[in-house]
């Protein structure tokens, strides 16, 4: 097997890795946003349920939830595709984390500004759309980057449900070439590069929407 073959095969896996990461991240952001919005706008009776969701989904290992969904659901009559299983496990777990990120960011929006917007005569929804949401999204950026990185790093679990992503390709190549160390090392570097490119892209977006003076001293571990 030539070097080129190895590159091509890893490239094939790359597409699946990106697909899984993208689907789970988008699910995480959308569901996380919906949860944070519901919590913010009212529906007080729903709160215990949302709290329970955040607690449970942050307390279960990704792999365990993935196995429940992919191998467990069929035994109660629900068949899910591998990608959907990833979305329902990794995607919903990251939604639980992101809902907390968004909640924290919403709490950082200045209460005076919200009051001022209400005093102007804006409706609750207008206040949310025009004031709270744009500020909150900027505040949550470090947390979102952390979460996207986490999703990328858990994406190899997709191989356990049969998605031929990078790690799966590496396993095949390692068995075929007996150059496991080199191949896994190259794969490690590949993930690192994806991570850096993703980070770079997000930073470009952040720069585009950056507003002087609107930063939150928030922890980011990158």
């Amino acid at each position, binding site marked *: 097997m030539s070097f080129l073959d190895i590159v091509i095969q890893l490239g094939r896996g790359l597409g699946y890795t990106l697909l899984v990461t993208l689907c789970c991240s988008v699910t995480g952001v959308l569901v996380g946003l919906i949860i944070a919005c519901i919590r913010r706008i009212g529906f007080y009776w729903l709160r215990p349920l949302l709290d329970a969701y955040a607690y449970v989904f942050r307390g279960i290992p990704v792999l365990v939830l993935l196995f429940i969904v992919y191998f467990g659901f069929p035994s109660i009559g629900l068949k899910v595709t591998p990608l959907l299983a990833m979305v329902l496990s990794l995607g919903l777990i990251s939604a639980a984390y992101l809902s907390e990120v968004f909640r924290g960011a919403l709490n950082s929006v*200045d209460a*005076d*500004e919200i*009051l*001022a*917007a*209400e*005093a*102007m*005569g*804006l*409706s609750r929804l*207008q206040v949310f759309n*025009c*004031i709270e949401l*744009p*500020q909150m999204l*900027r505040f949550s950026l470090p947390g979102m980057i952390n979460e996207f990185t986490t999703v990328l790093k858990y994406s190899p679990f997709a191989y356990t449900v049969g998605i031929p992503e990078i790690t799966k390709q590496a396993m095949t190549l390692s068995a075929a070439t007996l150059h496991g160390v080199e191949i896994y090392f190259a794969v490690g570097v590949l993930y690192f590069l994806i991570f850096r490119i993703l980070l770079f892209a997000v930073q470009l977006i952040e720069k585009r929407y950056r*507003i*002087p*003076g*609107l930063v939150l001293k928030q922890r980011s571990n990158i």
Partner: protein
Amino acid sequence: MPVIEVRDLVKKFGEQIILNGVNLDIYEGDLKVVMGSSGSGKSTLLRCLNRLEEPSGGRIVFRGENIMGADVDVRALRQSIGFVFQQFALYRHLSVLENVTLALRKLKKLSAAEAKHKALAELERLNMASHAGKYPSQLSGGQKQRVAIARALAMDPAVVFFDEPTSALDPLMTREVADMMNRLHDEGVTMLCVTHDLKLAGQISDKVVFLDKGIVRAEASIATLSQNHDDERIRAFFAREADY
């Protein structure tokens, strides 16, 4: 007919009585000043008048209409009352221009061009047009206040409320704030200002309302009030504020 007519306004937070039967009239073109120490209920009074707080009792008539009921269009009411907050509360993620156009676009439904035109005119009036592209964090306290005023005036309100306009600024700025408010007064803007700043009150008004423990204890000139010896509360206030 007064712009705002307040009768026996009561506001309670649980057991605590904040406003205990306030009476007040604001006529068109007035620059009405309400004085009182912190905790006298000044800010609560302002917030009751545009229903940011729900009054517990009494009557508020705005341009001939009772605005106390549950069926009142609160948002329409708020659109006709400008509010300049103590800390100015500019929207940090919006530029100076966008701060002023927001309500014009979302509430008055003006086009982007119309809103911009109107906003620039108001900023010009407050001498802030050259800062239109800046963000709040890039402005000084006084500049922020002028943007907040332009933001309020842009909606052509029937009255503008000022909540402690000098408290977030350097004491040396008081004169400037007073001059600006007097100029707006000359231009015919109706204003209601609550403050505990004697200097400001003296410079913008010859007759102030003295609020204490939720009731209006006097309405007179600063000079008269400062020599008032019958009311112990007024005496105490002036003794305290004079040092300051």
